[in-house]
Structures are given as structure tokens and as C-alpha cells.
């Protein structure tokens, strides 16, 4: 991968750098104000007092904006070949032709490709690179941007608000069923940089959308930082399925924030796979604010050598008859550390709500670690809450059984791990499922294919 950066900011963060970013994007004043306010919050906020150890992350050495040597194009032909190749290796242009309604592809700090099928445009669906949306639909964006994740939420939300760049904006008008998924893919190609894409999805009444997010990066000896933000507004009766396969390089700090608000009878479905990065803190949250709103989670965290992945789910039941269902699984192997942090809060007014949380952790060997910390707070006595947790080592008898059928020990472990992760894998688009199985095989020296 060659360095395509034509321009980038100097390392660290100050008002001048923020002005530079804002001006290069021709932003309206209100957005620049958000950035400036965020900067203040960032400078005044302490690091989180839980989760992973980020003392080795030197924010003064992170380059917060790196412009790729490419414009945002609507045809892959126009994307420079060296950048395009990276996305072709990931199979993205092919998947777009076969099974996607739209694709965004970000390299470093900017989208290099963003396009949607004509049929969807005719239905009034808006799918734009986030910065473009700020310029072209300022009123719509302003109504939602960083309302669910306010810049003063925590230190890395503030950092995001100050330096965000790229990402995707989607608006689906009422009663539109987007027939195929839309996908955005984020690649980090430069050493020592931070990526801060912003995803804002608004799905209006009675509509349906499936969105897929993929991330990966080039591994470097210096630290990279990812602090994206995802805000999803599910309006009355709408359904959003948001799937993520995160496979950042192992030098990356992934301190990411995702939140959805769900109105009456709406549904948010989170499919989330965290496997890359050195350290991750990620807790997709669902705010069930309308009567009958629902949240479903199928998440896996896959922590290998040198990784500390602190992930979880948060559900806030604020209205009656809301429901949530969480299936969260983690694998730790080769000294990896997986931590599940869950919260279900059922407010006093959220009567007749239902929640079931199932979190399980599988440790493949004696050097790996796993913890679960599920917190459930129920403020009324007319709700049904269920919780199951399992933390355990891989079962020797299972390995023996599989080996007695001719599988090597490595194959047996890989197969058990795959089986454990099956509820997640079968939710994935085919090419991701294949890729995921390939990665498991690789980690366990297995050749089960």
C-alpha cells in the first residue's frame, strides 16, 4: 500500500487544526461550532475510568486527518488503482454488483467511493458521504447530528465531534423497504492516524433498512486510533438491521460509540463482530423510547494474542411494552482478554417490558481471560427479565470426541469455536461468513475450510 495522502494535519489537536479541517470541507458555521465545542469538552474531560488501559495511547502524536489522494467518486473506474485494489481484495465492488443497494468506501479520512442504485434514488432514499450531506441537506442533518451521542458524552465522543470526517448519511423516507443492504467500508492505510467517520441513519415511519459496516486496516508499529460514531434513528414502526464486522489492525485503539433510538413499535437489530484492534471499548446502545419498541443483539467478541476487547450492550427501556433480547458471546485464545459489560435499565414507566440477556464466554486455553459484568436495573415490578451467563473453558471431552472422528486437535478446536459463534456467523452476508470462518481456521492452524 503506498501513501496516498496529499494533505494531512499535523499531529495532535488545537483550534487551528480544527479550523483547517472545517474549512477544507466548506462547512457551515453551525458544524464548525460543534467541532469547537467538542474540542473544549475533549481537552477538559478525563479518560474513561473503566475498560482498557489506554495510557500508552499518545493523543498528541495521532494525526487526526489524512486526506487520501482521491476524490469521492461514483464509479469504481475513477478511483485510483492503488486504492481501488484494496477494496477489490475485500470483494466490495463485486458484492455491490451482486447483492448491495449501495456502497460507501472510505480510505483514511475521506470517502473515495459512494454510490447507490438508481431505483433507490427514485424512492427518495438519500445515501451520501457525511460531509456532502452536511452541505446538501443541512436542515435534515442538523436535526439529528450528535443528538443521540452528544459531544460531551465522554472523552472520545468529544474527540470525534472535534475531528470527525467521512462516514455515511442515510435517510429512508416513510414506508420504503430498502430491498438490499447498503454497505460502508472503512480502511485505514496510514500509520499513526486517527479515523473518525460519522454514520447517521434516519429510517422514517414504517420503513426498513439493512446496513453493513466493515472495517480493517494496515498494521503498523505505531498506534492508530479509531473513534467513530454511529447514530441511528428508528422511527415509528421502522426496522433497522445494523451489522458490523470490525477487523482493525492489531495496532489500533478502537474507542467507538454507537447508539440507536427506537420509536413506537420500531426495531433495531444489532449484529456486531469485534475481532480486530489491540484494544476496544464498544457498547452499542439502544434507547427504547416508544411503546412496543424492540432491540435485538447478536454479538461476538474474538480476542486473540495481545488483544484486550471490552465490549458490551446497553439497553434503556423507557416506554411500556418494550422488549430486548441479547445474545452475546466471546472467545478468548492465545492470551487474549474478552470482557463483556452489559446494562439493561428498565424505567419506572416501562411497564410490561421484557428483556432476556444471554452472555457466554469460551476460553480456548489456560492463558486467555474472560470476564462478564452484566448489570440489570428494573424500576418497576411489571416487567419480565431473564438473564443467563456462562463462562467456561473449551471442553476436553468435546475435543476427544471430535478427534476420535479423525479431526486433529486444531481442527476440533476450530470447529467448536465456529459452532459457538454460529448464531452470529449465520447472520452475516455470505462473503463475510466465509471470511470469518477462514480467520478462525487461520488462528487455530486448522484446515477444515
Amino acid at each position: 500500500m503506498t501513501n496516498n495522502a496529499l494533505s494531512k494535519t499535523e499531529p495532535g489537536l488545537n483550534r487551528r487544526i480544527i479550523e483547517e479541517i472545517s474549512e477544507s470541507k466548506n462547512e457551515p458555521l453551525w458544524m464548525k461550532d460543534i467541532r469547537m465545542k467538542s474540542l473544549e469538552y475533549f481537552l477538559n474531560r478525563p479518560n474513561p475510568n473503566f475498560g482498557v488501559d489506554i495510557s500508552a495511547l499518545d493523543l498528541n502524536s495521532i494525526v487526526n486527518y489524512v486526506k487520501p489522494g482521491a476524490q469521492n467518486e461514483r464509479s469504481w473506474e475513477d478511483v485510483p488503482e492503488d486504492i481501488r485494489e484494496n477494496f477489490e481484495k475485500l470483494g466490495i465492488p463485486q458484492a455491490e454488483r451482486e447483492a448491495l443497494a449501495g456502497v460507501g468506501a472510505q480510505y483514511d479520512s475521506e470517502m473515495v467511493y459512494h454510490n447507490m442504485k438508481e431505483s433507490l434514488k427514485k424512492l427518495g432514499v438519500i445515501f451520501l458521504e457525511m460531509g456532502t450531506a452536511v452541505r446538501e441537506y443541512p436542515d435534515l442533518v442538523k436535526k439529528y447530528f450528535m443528538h443521540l451521542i452528544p459531544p460531551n458524552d465522554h472523552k472520545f465522543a468529544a474527540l470525534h465531534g472535534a475531528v470527525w470526517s467521512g462516514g455515511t448519511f442515510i435517510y429512508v423516507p416513510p414506508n420504503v423497504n430498502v430491498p438490499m443492504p447498503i454497505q460502508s467500508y472503512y480502511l485505514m492505510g496510514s500509520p499513526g492516524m486517527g479515523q473518525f467517520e460519522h454514520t447517521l441513519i434516519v429510517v422514517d415511519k414504517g420503513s426498513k433498512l439493512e446496513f453493513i459496516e466493515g472495517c480493517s486496516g494496515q498494521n503498523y508499529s505505531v498506534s492508530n486510533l479509531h473513534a467513530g460514531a454511529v447514530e441511528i434513528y428508528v422511527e415509528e414502526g421502522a426496522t433497522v438491521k445494523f451489522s458490523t464486522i470490525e477487523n482493525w489492525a492489531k495496532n489500533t485503539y478502537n474507542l467507538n460509540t454507537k447508539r440507536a433510538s427506537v420509536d413506537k413499535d420500531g426495531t433495531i437489530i444489532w449484529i456486531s463482530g469485534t475481532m480486530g484492534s489491540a484494544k476496544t471499548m464498544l457498547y452499542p446502545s439502544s434507547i427504547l423510547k416508544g411503546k412496543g419498541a424492540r432491540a435485538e443483539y447478536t454479538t461476538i467478541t474474538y480476542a486473540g494474542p495481545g488483544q484486550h476487547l471490552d465490549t458490551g450492550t446497553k439497553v434503556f427501556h423507557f416506554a411500556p411494552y418494550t422488549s430486548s433480547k441479547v445474545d452475546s458471546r466471546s472467545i478468548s485464545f492465545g492470551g487474549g482478554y474478552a470482557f463483556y459489560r452489559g446494562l439493561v435499565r428498565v424505567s419506572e414507566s416501562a411497564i410490561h417490558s421484557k428483556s432476556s440477556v444471554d452472555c457466554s464466554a469460551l476460553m480456548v486455553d489456560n492463558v486467555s481471560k474472560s470476564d462478564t459484568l452484566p448489570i440489570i436495573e428494573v424500576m418497576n415490578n411489571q416487567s419480565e427479565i431473564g438473564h443467563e451467563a456462562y463462562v467456561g473453558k473449551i471442553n476436553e471431552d468435546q475435543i476427544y470426541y471430535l478427534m476420535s472422528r479423525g479431526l486433529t486437535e486444531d481442527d476440533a478446536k476450530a470447529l467448536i469455536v465456529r459452532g459457538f459463534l454460529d448464531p452470529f456467523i449465520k447472520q452475516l452476508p455470505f462473503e463475510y461468513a466465509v471470511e470469518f470462518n477462514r480467520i478462525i481456521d487461520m488462528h487455530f492452524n486448522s484446515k477444515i475450510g
Partner: protein
Amino acid sequence: MELIKIIDLHASIGEKEVIKGVNLTVNRNEIHAIMGPNGAGKTTLINVIMGNPKYRVTSGEILFEGKSILNLSVDERARLGIFQSFQYPEEISGVTFMNFLRLAYEKMHPDQKMSVLEFGDMMVKIADSLKMDHNFLKRYVNLGFSGGERKKSEILQLSALNPKIALLDETDSGLDIDALKIVSEGINNASKNGMAVVLVTHYKRILDYVKPKFVHIFIDGRIVKTGGIELAEELERNGYEEVRI
């Protein structure tokens, strides 16, 4: 042809000796029944032949087709053609029976290339012969199987993987008479191509269907007596104490 030859085998779990000098030779095509009281070490003997790492061989020898297998891992022994059926087979969540079996088949028979469809056809035929619902193949391995389904699942694997010797651990226990007949027929079919069988059982019942050439009485870690089917009959009449000497 001598398939497996066990010579003065001793094995322990922890510090405790559980196999105390077993001698047994099984030729191709032969069916051997091993009968004995609970806790005598019959299941342990099967585990030791298969190489279960819970047990440690302290002395003696196990030859398979003339070569020692004591230094081989469990999967290497399996790939030589040794098959163990389990009384309580493990559940593997998230892995379908079909995928698991296809994988196992590829490991056991790397030279035989079968397409997914061909393999599927073969499995359906075997499932039919065992009067098993085809949906069974789509279910997760042994997950939530009834006692009878587990036994059938083990015999289905045996039929599919086509080993040289089957070590069957109480395959008959907990089966009603119809299921017993079906399972026995499965074993007999599998042994048509020369497969040898070592069948551990408590009851003579299955030996009416799977006919052994030899019956061995196994007590306290050793074979104490060997004979033909008449030995099983004697056992049924008189119990283990009488046949001891």
C-alpha cells in the same frame, strides 16, 4: 488377518491402575463381545485403545496391523481406521451433523473425493437404513438428542466413516426392541466389508442380532474368561460370580 493385538496391557488413571494385564487379538471380520460387571473397566479399555489422554499406558503393547499405536494421537488412530462409539456422545452446538460428518469423512478418506451432493445422497441412504428422519442431518451434533437418537447417531457415523474396527460401548443400552434390531442391522451391514467389532455390553440381548465369534468376561481390569456365545448364555443364567473361574 490380525487387525489389533493387545499384549499384557496395563493402564492407569492418575495413580490408580484400571487396566491390569489385558491380552486380546481381534482379526479382520471378527465380532468380539466383552461382558462384565459395572466398573470392571470395559469402557476404559475402549478409551485406552482409542488413546484417550485421560489414561496412561504403564506397560504392554497395542499393535494395529502389526505396528504399535501407543505413540499415536487419538485422531491418528482414528485415521488408521479405529472407531469408538460412545455411550454418552458429546453435544457440539452450532455444528450440523452433515457438516461434521463430511469433515470427518474427508479426514478419514482423503483419497475419496465426493461432491457435497454425492455425500449428501450417501448420508440420506444411511439415515433411511437406520429409519432416521432426514432432518436429523441438519440438526446440531447430538444436541438435545434422545437416548435412542444418540445410539443411532453413533451407528450412522460408523456406517458413514467405514472404519476397520469398531469399538462399541453399550450401544444396546436404553434401546427398545425395534430400535435394537435397527441398530444391530446397522452394525451388521457395516461389518459386511470386513470390519471387526468389539462390542461392550451388559446384556445377551444384542448378541441375538449381532453374533460374536468370541465372548470375553471382563472383571477387575482383566479378561478372566473367553469362550463362544454359550458363555453369554451361562452368564445370563448364573451371573458373574459363577463364571469367574
